[in-house]
């Protein structure tokens, strides 16, 4: 009996101690390790691609909130963190009304429709200086907008009907209200870009010019009163030029429901993953860091998380909302016509041993990708057809695809076209007799794991008669030489490119991936163009529901337009055991206002 009482008391006291230890306490500095070479070096939340990076977006969103905020594993619109209630659409989906929530800027000004008008004015005037703008999309698809200050609403009258989900997730998702305190065309010179009832584009270029000028003076980021007007949970406290030191402190006037408990948030930059890992290992200087893939023990297939080599930290793999893949150049004058053949693309997809890639290149921290929509995390977007993997790894299938279409595979050397022609079992249009099956693949140089992965592909492809020549190139050259082109241009020499990184869905959270597949899309280096698919995409964007979305996805999967590769985790996050409230979202945005130190 006494033993039972003692045990019960001990259990109670342990539980209490544990609960006390996990209680949130106020204060403390969270040091957050940024990926190597990434420094938040832009503060104006209206910037071009040259400053784009997750770290810049994180840095800004902590201070300047977007109109709508998306978090969670299924990338839902999170009303609690958004500045407006979910948008409402009229019956014909041509008018969108956004009602702002009661929210204030840190200078005491109320968030108002004029702040959206200000953004719209700048956007209309400076589209080509804005990273999120896609020609033809928002705001080009908006016929007019009205700003009702009394009702706190903004109404967009669209040029045609839209799919409400697409418009909410991929168009107005990146609207960025800007405070009236920024409506200046020079020091102390008040302007009128944020007209209360309309976006006054005529005055906006001068305002943009002034704001851009102020944002180019990085040495004044922490002291310039402009940047202290925030509506997010934090404001900038300390900043050294170039973003090498970035410290944020809580915005005491934050209107959101989760006010920060920590006293400071330090975004720490690193020169390399190895340097970050050394600091992580050497003590407790980093609160949230990351384990380099090369240092991670391989995760067993059955486990969600593998062994963590660090004590005092919890390993949390960060699932990316992205797709991995390789672009093949449909316009290449040498192999473009071969790449036009479906059987070839199927064969190419069949020699990608995704499980080997996951094991060898990513230490188990990746998931296989079978089509143009992320297969993980599970969302309503990936179709059953895509998830069932229509072209599983099989050298035999790849050989069959080729030999049944006029190619002969010798014992050694590349396959040769022996049955030219356009029949069902011939090599295909424009492919001549004796043509050999070779492909040059560009990939990033200087990364051992990338070379290993490419050699795996090369080895499997060779067994199927496809001879791949590997062409490692520095990152800058890789991107510069793998762009959109026409067959006659000298820039069209590239045949296939693997960028070594995944294509993030950000900030277009609805993963239709039109930017990769629509004719002449800037983000589609493969030069793929199919007017029928474009017509289907117009349905995706203009009709309610997922039916057209699924049709497009299944078609792209079946056609293997882009060779699918596994999608690795964004990073292997190491979270200090002293930190509570930590969560991570595939949107890649961080929420330190929810984090706290355990007492």
């Amino acid at each position, binding site marked *: 009996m006494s033993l039972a009482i003692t045990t019960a008391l001990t259990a109670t006291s342990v539980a209490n101690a544990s609960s006390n230890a996990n209680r949130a306490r106020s204060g403390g500095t969270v040091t957050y390790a940024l990926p190597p070479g990434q420094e938040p070096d832009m503060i104006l939340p209206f910037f071009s691609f040259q*400053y784009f990076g997750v770290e810049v977006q994180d840095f800004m969103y902590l201070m300047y909130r977007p109109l709508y905020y998306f978090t969670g594993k299924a990338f839902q619109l999170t009303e609690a963190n958004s500045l407006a209630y979910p948008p409402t659409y009229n019956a014909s989906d041509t008018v969108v009304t956004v009602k702002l929530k009661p929210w204030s800027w840190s200078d005491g000004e109320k968030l108002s429709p004029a702040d959206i008008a200000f953004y719209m004015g700048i956007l209309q005037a400076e589209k080509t*200086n804005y990273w999120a703008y896609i020609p033809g999309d928002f705001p080009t698809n908006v016929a007019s907008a009205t700003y009702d200050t009394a009702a706190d609403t903004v109404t967009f009258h669209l040029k045609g009907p839209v799919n409400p989900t697409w418009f909410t997730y991929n168009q107005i998702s990146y609207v960025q209200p800007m405070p009236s305190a920024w409506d200046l065309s020079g020091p102390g010179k008040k302007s009128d870009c944020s007209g209360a009832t309309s976006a006054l584009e005529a005055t906006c270029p001068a305002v943009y010019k002034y704001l851009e000028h102020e944002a180019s003076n990085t040495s004044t980021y922490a002291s310039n009163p402009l940047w202290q007007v925030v509506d997010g949970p934090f404001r900038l406290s300390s900043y050294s030029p*170039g973003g*090498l030191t970035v410290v944020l402190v809580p915005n005491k006037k934050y209107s959101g429901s989760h006010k920060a408990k920590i006293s400071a948030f330090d975004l720490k930059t690193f*020169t390399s993953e190895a340097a970050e890992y050394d*600091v992580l290992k*050497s003590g407790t200087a980093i609160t949230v860091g990351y384990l380099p893939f090369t240092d991670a023990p391989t995760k067993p297939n059955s486990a969600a998380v593998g062994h963590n080599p660090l004590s005092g930290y919890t390993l949390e793999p960060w699932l990316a909302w992205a797709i991995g893949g390789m672009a093949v150049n449909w316009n290449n004058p040498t192999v473009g016509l071969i790449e036009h053949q479906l059987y070839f693309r199927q064969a190419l997809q069949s020699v990608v041993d995704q499980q080997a890639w996951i094991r060898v290149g990513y230490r188990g921290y990746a998931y296989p990708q079978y089509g143009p929509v992320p297969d993980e995390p599970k969302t309503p977007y990936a179709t059953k057809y895509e998830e069932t993997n229509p072209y599983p790894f099989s050298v035999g299938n790849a050989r069959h695809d080729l030999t049944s279409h006029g190619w002969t595979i010798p014992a050694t050397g590349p396959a040769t076209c022996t049955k030219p022609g356009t029949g069902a079992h011939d090599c295909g249009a424009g492919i001549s007799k004796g043509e050999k099956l070779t492909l040059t693949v560009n990939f990033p140089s200087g990364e051992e794991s990338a070379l290993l992965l490419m050699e795996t592909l090369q080895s499997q492809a060779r067994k199927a008669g496809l001879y791949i020549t590997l062409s490692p190139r520095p990152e800058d050259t890789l*991107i510069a030489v793998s762009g959109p082109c026409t067959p006659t241009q000298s820039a069209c020499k590239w045949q296939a490119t693997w960028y070594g990184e995944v294509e993030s869905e950000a900030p277009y959270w609805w993963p239709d991936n039109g930017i990769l597949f629509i004719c002449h899309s*800037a983000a589609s280096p493969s030069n793929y163009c199919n007017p029928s698919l474009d017509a289907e995409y117009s349905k995706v964007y203009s009709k309610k529901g997922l039916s057209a979305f699924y049709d497009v996805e299944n078609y792209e999967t079946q056609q293997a337009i882009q060779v699918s590769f596994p999608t690795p985790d964004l990073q292997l996050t190491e979270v200090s055991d002293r930190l509570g409230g930590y969560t991570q979202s595939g949107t890649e945005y961080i929420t330190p206002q929810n984090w706290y130190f355990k007492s």
Partner: protein
Amino acid sequence: MTGYLVRRLLQAVAVLIVVSLVVFGLLHLLPGGPARAVLGNRANPGEIANFNREYGLTRPIPVQYVIWMGHLFRGTLGWSYTQNQSVASLIGERLPKTLILTISSVLLALIVGIPVGMVQALKRNRALDQVSTLASFTFYSIPSFFLGLILIILLAVNVHLFPAEGPQGTSFGQILGDFRALVLPMVTLALGGIALFSRYMRSSTIDNLVEDYVRTARAKGAGRARVLVRHVFRNALAPIATILGLFLPVLLSGAVVVETVFNYPGMGLLFWTAAIKRDYPTELGVTMLAALLTVVGSLLADICYAISDPRIRYVNR
């Protein structure tokens, strides 16, 4: 000497102009323009055109060169394509870090390497010399990134004697104020220098020890210490001065590895990042600085050579 200096300075200016022309030309010969490399593969043609217009990349290359020379003379060195700062400001931010690291490591290398080399020469072919030679070869052949990692694991991760990263401040005061954090990167960079200087000092000392003037000095009754310090040491230093002058730019480029390993972003890393992102203005700015250091280093070496060996006089005075 003055005439010589003027001629060397004029030569230096010519060298710098040639370097700038060659580097500028080579950068523009790279396949694909910088716009896509900087903006990424999602940039649309409008954004690419905007970028090219903003940075004057649509103009003829000679015009671009003249504009860049204008930036050079104004001291801004142009505007970085990726880092939202002028190149001069970026260099101003990173240079103190690299200067402190390289100067302190060179000083350490000299302070240790020269006496070690002399002692080796005096005890040549004995155990001490053999051990020092072995150590020199070892340190010289180990890549600095590996050496750095070993030092971090031993002294930062296992023993917690030093931080695993270099000083994180940006000014001279902040960096020097965190001297403990400077020790590991400094030692990593210095060990190769110690090996190099000690080897040169050893052979140079051995050469001088058998010179006639040493025998004469001894015959005149000079003590061993006096002979070594007043005569041998001074003469043996001449090759070190030459190496030291040419060592400065090597250190600048060699620091990139140490900067990467020790999270100490200086000039080497600035250049590396600019190179992989095609940030032409930053690449040009750092290259010009490296060229300037090479020219100045070489000039200083010649002057030091003359000072250390009064027999050397420059012709055509």
